[in-house]
C-alpha cells in the first residue's frame, strides 16, 4: 500500500510540471541541542509540491512536521539532502514565500492596518502605498471596521484573519502553514478553513499545510503526506480527489471523504501509537 502510493506520485508529478514549486530530496535533519546531544527530526524525506498544488502534511505530534516548513523557508538547513524552491536551491529566506504560524505572530503593538502593511513596508513600499494595499486586504478578510484596532481587542479568529491578510498581501507563490488553526475553536476553525480556500483559489499559489488534524488535511488538500513517528520519514502519500470548490461544513459528510479518512487514519494510527 505504502509503496504503491509513493510510486504513483513522485515521478509522475515531476514529469507533469516543468519544475515543482517545492522539492525536498532525501532530506535528513539533525539537531544539536544546547547540551551537545544530537536528535534526528527528519530522516531521508522526499516531497514534491507542484505549482498551484495544495499539500497537507500530517503525522503524530512532535514528529518533525514543522521541520519540513523551516527547511523550505531557509530558517533551517538540512544536514543531508537538498531542498529546492522553484528549481533553485534554498539560500536564505525566499521573498516568494509566505508563512502562517501556529501561535499568534502578529505584532501586538501595531494596529491591524499597520500589521497587514508590515510586509510591503519591510519590502520598501511607501507608507501610503502599503496602507492602501493593506486596507484592500483588510476588506477582503472581512475586518473593514477593525483597521485601527489593536490585536488584543480582537478575537482569536479575527487575529488569524489579520495573520492571513498579512501573509497574502505579499502575494506569495508558496504559502506555508504550520497548524495555523489549531488554537481556534471548532466553529471558528471551519470558518477560517473556508476563508483560506477562498483566498487560495483567488490567488492560486502552492500551499504546504502542516496539521495533526487529519480531517482538516483531507478537506483542504489535493495531496496528503503521512509522516511516521520520530525520526519522521515519509510513510505514504494519498491523493484526495474530492471536487472543488469545497465547502467545509458539507465536505466532511460526503461518503468519499469518510472512506478516505478511514483509510488514512488506519495508516496514521500505527504511528500515533508509537509516538
Amino acid at each position: 500500500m505504502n509503496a504503491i502510493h509513493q510510486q504513483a506520485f513522485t515521478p509522475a508529478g515531476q514529469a507533469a510540471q516543468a519544475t515543482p514549486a517545492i522539492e525536498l530530496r532525501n532530506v535528513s535533519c539533525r539537531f544539536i541541542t544546547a547540551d551537545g546531544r544530537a536528535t534526528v527530526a527528519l530522516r531521508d524525506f522526499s516531497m514534491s509540491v507542484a505549482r498551484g498544488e495544495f499539500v497537507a502534511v500530517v503525522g503524530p505530534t512532535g514528529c518533525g512536521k514543522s521541520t519540513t516548513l523551516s527547511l523550505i523557508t531557509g530558517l533551517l538547513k538540512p544536514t543531508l539532502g537538498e531542498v529546492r524552491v522553484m528549481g533553485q536551491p534554498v539560500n536564505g529566506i525566499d521573498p516568494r514565500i509566505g508563512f502562517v504560524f501556529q501561535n499568534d505572530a502578529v505584532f501586538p503593538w501595531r494596529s491591524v492596518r499597520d500589521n497587514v502593511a508590515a510586509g510591503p513596508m519591510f519590502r520598501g513600499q511607501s507608507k501610503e502605498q502599503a496602507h492602501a494595499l493593506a486596507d484592500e486586504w483588510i476588506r477582503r478578510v472581512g475586518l473593514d471596521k477593525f483597521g485601527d484596532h489593536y490585536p488584543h481587542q480582537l478575537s482569536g479568529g479575527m487575529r488569524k484573519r489579520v495573520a492571513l491578510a498579512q501573509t497574502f498581501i505579499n502575494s506569495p507563490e508558496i504559502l506555508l502553514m504550520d497548524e495555523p488553526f489549531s488554537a481556534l475553536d471548532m466553529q471558528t476553525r471551519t470558518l477560517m478553513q473556508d476563508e483560506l480556500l477562498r483566498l487560495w483559489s483567488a490567488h492560486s499559489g502552492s500551499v504546504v499545510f502542516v496539521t495533526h488534524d487529519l480531517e482538516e488535511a483531507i478537506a483542504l488538500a489535493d495531496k496528503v503526506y503521512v509522516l511516521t513517528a520520530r525520526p519522521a520519514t515519509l510513510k505514504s502519500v494519498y491523493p484526495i480527489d474530492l471536487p472543488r470548490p469545497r465547502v467545509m461544513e458539507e465536505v466532511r459528510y460526503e461518503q468519499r471523504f469518510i472512506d478516505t479518512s478511514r483509510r488514512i487514519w488506519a495508516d496514521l494510527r500505527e504511528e500515533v501509537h508509537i509516538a
Partner: protein
Amino acid sequence: MTQAQASHSAATMDIAAVEAEARRKIRARKQLVIGLRIAILVIVLGGWEGGARLGWIDPFFFSQPSAIVAQIVEWMVEGTSQGPLWTQVLVTLEETVLGFLIGSVAGVIAGIILGRNKLLSDVFSLYIQIANSIPRVVLGSIFVIAFGLGMASKVALAVVMVFFVVFANAFQGVREADRYMIANAQILGASPRQVTMAVVIPSALSWILASLHVSFGFALVGAVVGEFLGSKQGIGLLISTAQGAFNASGVFAAMIVLAVVALAADWLLHALERRLLKWRPQAF
C-alpha cells in the same frame, strides 16, 4: 400577560435598585479609604508634633512637623545658606536628569546590542553581573576625586547608578522577544535592522519602561550622594550642611523637597508609559 409584564417591570425596578445600592456601597468604601488615609496622616504628624511639644521626643534630634514646615518656608522666602532654594532644586534636578538620560540611553543601546548577539552576551554577562553586585555608590568618591566638585562628578555617579538597571532590563526584554514574531517579520521581508526596529525594540519596551521608573530614583540617589560627598550647590549639600549644623529640621525639609521632585518625575514617566504602551491590554 399583564401579570407577566408587571413582574417583568418589577424585575427591572429591582435591578435598578440593586445597582443603586451597589454604587452607594462602592462610593462609601472609597470615602472610607480616603478618610482612613487622612486619619493616619493626622495621627502620625499630630503624634510627632504633640510628642515633641510634650517632651517625649527630643526635637533637637528628631525635629517636629511645624519646625520642618517653618524651615521650608524660610528657604523659600529667604533662600538657603547657599542661595535660593530653587537654584538648589534645579541643580540637583539637572544632574539627575542628565545622568538619567545618559545612563538610560547607554543602557538601552548596550542592552539591545548584547541581547541581539549571542557571543557578546555570553562573554559579557558574567562581568555585568559582577558590576551589578558592586555597591556602585562608592564610586562617587572616585568621581569627586577625578571630576572635581562641579556637576560632572554627580552626573557620572547618576549615570553609573542608572546604566546597569536599564541595561539589565533592556537585555532581558530583547532576549524575551518572541521568536515566532521575529521569524514572521523575517519572512515578511524584514532586514536584520528592520527586525530590531520593528520587533525587538517594541517588545523590549515594556521591560525598559518598567526599569525607567526605578532608575529615575537611582539617578536622584546618585546626584544627591554625589553632592553629599563634595559639591558647591544642590540639595545634597543642603542636607550635608544641615547635618553639620545639627539642624534636623533642615535634613527633613530637604528630604521632603526631594520627595516632591521624585513624585513629579514618576508622574511624568507614567504619562509617557501610558502613551507608548497604549497597545497593551489594560492591566487588571
